[in-house]
């Protein structure tokens, strides 16, 4: 298992380097690189926007705004180790500003998660349903942390920084949420 983890860590490093490269190229006006950057990161950006805004349409809007902002600001981007964290910080700021404008903070309801498509690769229909239900039953912050860790590849300390929460809170919510999800999924599959 550790060999697998080691490979995974190397993959994460490679992925970071690749994002850094694409972001720098984007900063030079390279639209192909920007397209690739979008393809590699849109899941994480959308997931963060959705978890902050609790509305699929709003999340889609903010994700679009975030990429336009990334395009405009990429020339002044300086490599600082985590391009994904930078991207998500841009998204977070836009989402917060939208929430301020709207004067409200919504809680994501179960329905919003029904956006998980019918046949995502590597996910059986049973898993999909269980994933959705399990996600819907998590506390909003647990869900946010788990999704960010799973999709963005951010480390816990980076998530803590992004969400402006103590690392210990992020760690405990992550572990609790994951345990909850596993228990829920195990319960479902036992039935």
């Amino acid at each position: 298992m550790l060999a697998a983890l080691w490979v995974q860590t190397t993959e994460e490093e490679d992925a970071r380097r690749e994002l850094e490269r694409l972001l720098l190229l984007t900063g030079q006006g390279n639209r192909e690189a920007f397209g690739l950057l979008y393809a590699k990161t849109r899941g994480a950006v959308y997931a963060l926007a959705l978890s902050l805004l609790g509305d699929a349409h709003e999340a889609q809007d903010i994700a679009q705004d975030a990429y336009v902002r990334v395009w405009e600001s990429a020339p002044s981007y300086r490599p600082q180790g985590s391009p994904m964290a930078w991207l998500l910080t841009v998204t977070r700021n836009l989402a917060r500003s939208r929430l301020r404008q709207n004067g409200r903070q919504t809680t994501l309801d179960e329905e919003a998660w029904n956006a998980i498509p019918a046949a995502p690769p590597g996910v059986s229909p049973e898993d999909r349903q269980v994933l959705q239900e399990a996600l819907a039953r998590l506390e909003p912050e647990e869900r946010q942390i788990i999704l960010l860790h799973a999709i963005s590849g951010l480390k816990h300390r980076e998530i803590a920084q992004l969400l402006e929460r103590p690392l210990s809170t992020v760690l405990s919510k992550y572990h609790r949420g994951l345990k909850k999800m596993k228990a829920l999924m195990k319960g479902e599959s036992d039935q």
Partner: protein
Amino acid sequence: MNDRELERKLADAVTRAAPDDLEAILSRCGAQNGSVMEMNQLISNESTKIARAKSRRAARPWLAAACAALVLLGTGGGGLLYHQSHAVASVVSLDVNPSIELKVNRNEKVISCTALNTEAAAVLFDMGGGADLAGTKLDVAVNAIVGALVREGYLDSISSAILISVEDNNQERAQRLQAELVASVDGVLQAQAPGTSVLSQVLTVDAGTKPVVYGEGLSLGKAALVEKVLAMNGAGEKAFDQLAALSVEELNDLLKAGEKRIPIGKSAAATAAETYAGTLALDSVTTDVDPELDEFPPHYEVKLKTARGEFEYIVDAFTGQVLSGPKDPLASGADTNPPSPGTDTPVSPDASAPQTPSSGAQGEDVGQEAAKQAALSHAGLSASDVTDWKVKREWDDGRLEYEIEFWCGTDEYDYTIDGHSCSVLKHELERHPHQDGTHHGGSVSGITLEAAKAAALSHAGLQESQVWDMKAEMDYDDGRLEYEVEFKSGGMEYEYTIDGVTGNILSFERETDD
């Protein structure tokens, strides 16, 4: 389902759920904010540079040009646009052995793509001889060409090299293009031909108007590389043509090794091997030549692919002498087993050649088991101690070798064993104390669960007898071994994360037990 699998499934599912709005986003992307770019940040660390960008100043003139182009697009300034799109701003050449030249306008669109030699013409055959690439973006064209070079087998050996040269009278633009192309080509090659070195250089020539100095078939980029070799070996201009006929990989090897002699070239090496093997007249035999000019002795590895299998020959890089490989392998009754230099003595081996692999005294193949045993004895281990065996039998410099790898706990052993004498040629021990030894049959290194509990208790200033509901488990976070320890005491709930290797407290939380 473990944590990792669960996260993977989640990531897959949510990524698929995210809407794909790229087109809408692109339609909203206009001019970018001002930029100050560090060009060297784009260049892969693994890439070897012949010349590196020297100026690190802002790329503002280019940006101004890009903005001007955008404004003109909006206002219909057709005349200037036409001029811009047809004026050569940069010339980019790609050299492996095929040499290809791309003329590019200031908007980085390809104006023309030319094959400079016959090998290049074959590579560009499927792209209308290069005509199909006109009008495409430079990076798209370069990626297409590199893909074709890989498909045609020009970049498949572990030591292949491609040279990217950018000629431009605008240094800043040249450096930017160089950085972009190196990064892009490196990206393609890492996936398709990971052993390839990417060389790059910027040439300060007034692009598009340069006088033809080196004649047909040679890019200015390769000519500059040849000049570098000439400067190193002092052979003088008379050797220029001889060196220009070599591939970029060979030229690069010469520079790396500081080798002043001029090698015979891949094609002469193939002919030498085929003459020795008696296959020169056979059309069905194909050759694959890999220069190893930075090895000792410098040589070419020539593989003959025949109906009766593959045969490998080692050809001296300067004399053309065949140092090892079977003679006449296709003659009736010849041994078609893997080439054995020990039994097939080549003609008049060079007595001065170091470590002639064709002495004829190396004997039989000792076999895999004996080689494994030799490695184990050297390591002082027995077969039951080790796991994850990997054994590779191969020929290196005309010598049969066994590359052996195995694990003992968290220690990784690598051996190279002589296939004839069983002697240990090379050995390496790498310890991985932070890895999970259980994968490799050993024990987990680092602190125990009890030590993790003790660390948490000590931090909380409590004795085990003072706490209840104590839970402790081992976990991995981002590849790091950790312990999660929880307990309750005095109306409070404690949660700790302890580093599984050092025992340090990574995080702790104390809250009211409700």
